[in-house]
C-alpha cells in the first residue's frame, strides 16, 4: 500500500523554513486526541494546525521566529492531560498553549492554565469554563455566550417557522458529556418555544441497535425529534429512523458525525430531509474569506493521511483558532499572556470561518452554528457533498439559502 507520510513532509517544510529564519522557535504546545474514539477528529484538527504553522513560517514566522508545534497524544483520556500540560509548560517550556479537542480533555487543562496565567484558546468544548470562570479562556466553537442553548436554538427556531406550529417534541441523546450538555440547552429552547416534551431519554454509548429507541419515540407521535449524539450513534439513529419509517415533521439535531465524509458517504440518501447542525456548508451564502482555498489545500493532504477528506467540521476552526492566536501575538508584539488575552477579548478577527468576536466568558459574542437540511443526495459518493444545494442552510437568517421542507417523512427521497 502506498503510504506517504505528509506529516514528515510537513516537518520537512518546517525544517526548511527554520533554516530560512535562524531564530529561536516560538513553541506552541498542546495535547491532542490522536487515538481513541475521537481520534479521527483530533488528527484532522492537527493537520489544519500544521498547515497554519507552515503558512506562517513561509511568510517569516511569528514575531520573526519560526513556529514549532509541540504536541502529545492524550488518547482522549482526561487522566493524561495534567501530566502532558505540565510537561509542555515546565519541561518543553512552550511559549503558548492551546487545547485538545472536546470538553473531557479541555477541562483538566484549565486549572493548569489558570495557575500559570496562560491565555488558553480551546477547540470545541461545550462550556467547560462554566465552573472555572477563567478570564483568559477562549473557545472557537461558534455556539455563542450561552453555549448549549446557542448550539441548539437554531433547530427549534427553524421548527417554529412551520405552519401550523409544532406542539410536541422528543429529545434523545447519548450518555456522554457533549450530548447531555446539548440536551440541557435544548430543553431551555423547548421551554422558551412552549413545546411539550413527550420523550426525554438517553442511551448508553455501547448501544448496538437503535430501532427499539426510535420505535419508542415514534410511539409518542412527536412533531419534532431532536437528537444529540456521537458518530456511531448518529449513524445508528439515522439508519433506524429510515428502517422504522419514522413519521415526524422535523427530525435531526446536534449530531456529531454527520459532518464527516465517512458518515455522509455511508448514509448517503438516508440523510435526505434531516435537519442537522453543521459548522460549515458549501453554500453560496457562506463565503468566509479563505475557507474555500483552505479546504482545497486541506482535502488532498487529508486524503493522503487517511483522514476525513471533506474537512467541513474541525479543520477550518482549528486553523481559525491558530489564526486568532497568531494575530493577537503579532499585534501585542511579545509573549505576554495577559496582553494576548486582553487583545483577543478586545478585537474582532477575520478568519477562515468568518469574523470572530469573543464575549466576556470567552465564548463567541454572537453564536452562529448552522442548521442545514440535507437534500437531493442520490448515492454514496463524496462529490455530491462538495457541491451547493445538498446542505441547504436554514438558520441563521444571515446565511439562509433555502426554506425548510417538511414534514420529514415525506422528504426522505
Amino acid at each position, binding site marked *: 500500500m502506498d503510504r506517504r507520510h505528509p506529516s514528515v513532509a510537513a516537518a520537512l517544510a518546517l525544517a526548511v523554513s527554520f533554516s530560512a529564519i535562524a531564530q529561536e522557535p516560538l513553541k506552541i504546545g498542546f495535547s491532542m486526541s490522536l487515538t481513541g474514539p475521537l481520534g479521527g477528529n483530533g488528527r484532522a484538527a492537527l493537520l489544519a494546525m500544521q498547515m497554519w504553522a507552515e503558512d506562517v513560517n513561509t511568510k517569516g514566522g511569528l514575531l520573526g521566529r519560526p513556529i514549532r508545534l509541540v504536541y502529545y497524544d492524550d488518547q482522549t483520556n482526561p487522566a493524561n492531560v495534567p*501530566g502532558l500540560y505540565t510537561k509542555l509548560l515546565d519541561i518543553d517550556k512552550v511559549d503558548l498553549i492551546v487545547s485538545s479537542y472536546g470538553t473531557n480533555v479541555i477541562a*483538566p487543562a484549565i486549572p493548569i492554565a489558570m495557575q500559570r496565567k496562560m491565555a488558553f484558546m480551546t477547540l470545541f468544548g461545550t462550556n467547560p469554563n462554566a*465552573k472555572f470562570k477563567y478570564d483568559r479562556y477562549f473557545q472557537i466553537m461558534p455556539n455563542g455566550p450561552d453555549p448549549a442553548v446557542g448550539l441548539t436554538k437554531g433547530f427549534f427556531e427553524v421548527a417554529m417557522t412551520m405552519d401550523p406550529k409544532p406542539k410536541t417534541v422528543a429529545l434523545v441523546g447519548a*450518555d456522554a458529556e457533549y450530548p447531555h450538555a446539548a440536551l440541557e440547552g435544548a430543553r431551555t429552547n423547548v421551554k422558551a418555544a412552549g413545546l411539550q416534551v413527550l420523550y426525554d431519554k438517553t442511551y448508553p454509548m455501547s448501544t448496538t441497535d437503535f430501532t427499539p429507541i426510535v420505535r419508542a419515540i415514534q410511539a409518542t407521535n412527536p412533531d419534532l425529534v431532536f437528537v444529540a449524539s456521537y458518530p456511531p450513534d448518529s449513524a445508528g439513529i439515522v439508519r433506524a429512523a429510515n428502517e422504522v419509517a419514522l413519521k415526524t415533521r422535523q427530525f435531526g439535531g446536534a449530531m456529531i458525525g454527520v459532518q464527516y465524509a465517512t458518515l455522509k458517504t455511508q448514509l448517503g440518501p438516508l440523510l435526505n430531509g434531516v435537519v442537522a447542525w453543521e459548522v460549515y456548508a458549501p453554500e453560496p451564502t457562506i463565503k468566509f474569506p479563505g475557507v474555500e482555498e483552505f479546504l482545497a489545500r486541506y482535502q488532498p493532504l487529508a486524503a493522503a493521511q487517511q483522514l476525513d477528506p471533506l474537512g467541513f467540521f474541525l479543520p477550518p476552526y482549528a486553523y481559525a483558532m491558530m489564526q486568532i492566536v497568531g494575530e493577537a501575538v503579532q499585534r501585542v508584539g511579545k509573549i505576554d499572556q495577559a496582553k494576548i488575552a486582553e487583545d483577543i477579548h478586545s478585537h474582532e478577527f477575520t478568519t477562515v470561518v468568518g469574523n470572530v468576536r469573543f464575549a466576556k466568558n470567552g465564548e463567541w459574542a454572537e453564536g452562529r452554528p448552522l442548521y442545514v437540511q440535507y437534500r437531493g443526495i442520490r448515492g454514496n459518493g463524496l462529490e455530491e457533498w462538495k457541491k451547493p444545494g445538498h446542505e441547504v442552510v436554514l438558520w441563521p437568517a444571515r446565511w439562509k439559502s433555502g426554506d425548510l421542507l417538511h414534514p420529514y417523512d415525506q422528504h426522505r427521497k
Partner: protein
Amino acid sequence: MKTSSFTAIALCTALLVAGTTSALVTNDYFFSASYTVLQFVVLATAWNILGGFTGYVNFGSAAFFALGAYSSIVLDKLFEAPITLSILSGTAVAALVGLGMGYLTLRLRGVFFAIATLAFAEVLFTFVVNWDYVGGARGAYVVLQGRPPLGFRSFVQFLFAIMALMAAGAVAIARFVQTSTLGLGLAAIRDDEVAAECSGVPTLRLKLVSTTVSGGLMGMAGAMFPYFLSYVEPHGVFSLSYAVNSIAMPLIGGMYDWAGPVIGALLLGGLQQALQVNVSADWNLFLVGALLVVFVTVAPHGIMGWTLRRNRRAGPT
C-alpha cells in the same frame, strides 16, 4: 522486621521524598507524572491483596477507584469537604462495597468471580451515569480554591505528597497482611480453597477481609482523583486501563510478595509516562501490550520470581 517499624520507615520515607522533591524540583511535570505512577502503586498493591495473596482475580478495580472518586465529589458538592475527610469517606465507602461484594460472590470461584466483578463494575457505571447529582454523563467539576495548603508551591505537589503517604501506607498494610496469620490463611485459600476449609481456615471471614481491604485501598486512591484532575466523568474514571494496569503490574512485578506490585507499578507506570511524551501514541500502546505479552511468557512469576529463584537454588518456587 516488625510491622510497626516497617510502617514507620515507609511513612517517613514517603515524607522525606515528598519534602525533598518539593523543595528541589521546580517543574510540576515531575509531580503530575509521579502522582500517576504512585497512584498505580496503590492500585496494584490493593489489587494484589485479593488477586495475588488470595487468588481471586478482580476485574472491577475501576469500580472501587470510581467509588472513591465519586464519594469525594458528593462531599464536595454537599459542603466543599476538606481533602482529608474525602479520603476517609472514599476509603470507607469502597471498603463497605468491597465487603458487600465479597459477601455476594461467596459461591463464585475462579473466572466466574472475575466475570462477576466485571458485571458489578458495569452496573455501577450505569448507576453513576444516571445519577444527576454527581453530574451523570456530564461529569462533575471540583475546583481547588486559594493557595495550596501547608506551604506547597502548587496543588499538585501537595497531592503528590499525599499520594506518597498513601503508597507507603498501602505497602505497609500489604506487608502486614502477607506476613501475618491472615496472610497464611489467604495463601492457603489461594493454593487450595477446599483443602484450606477442611483444615479449619475460616475461609469466608478471610475472604471478606481481603475484599474489604483491597476495595478500601482502591477507593483511597480514587478519592484523590477529582482533586488531581478537576473534572471527572464516568467514562474516564471507569476506564478499562485501571483494570488492566492493576492486573498487569502485580503480574509483571510478582504476585506473591508485597514488593511485586510496587516494582511492577514503578516499572510499567514509569514506562507508560515516559513513552507518552517520547514516542508516538500508537507505539506507546503497542509497547505496553507487547511488554505484557513478553513478560508473562518469559517471567512466570514476575520480576520477584526471577530474583527469588536466583537466591534460592533448592526449594519450591
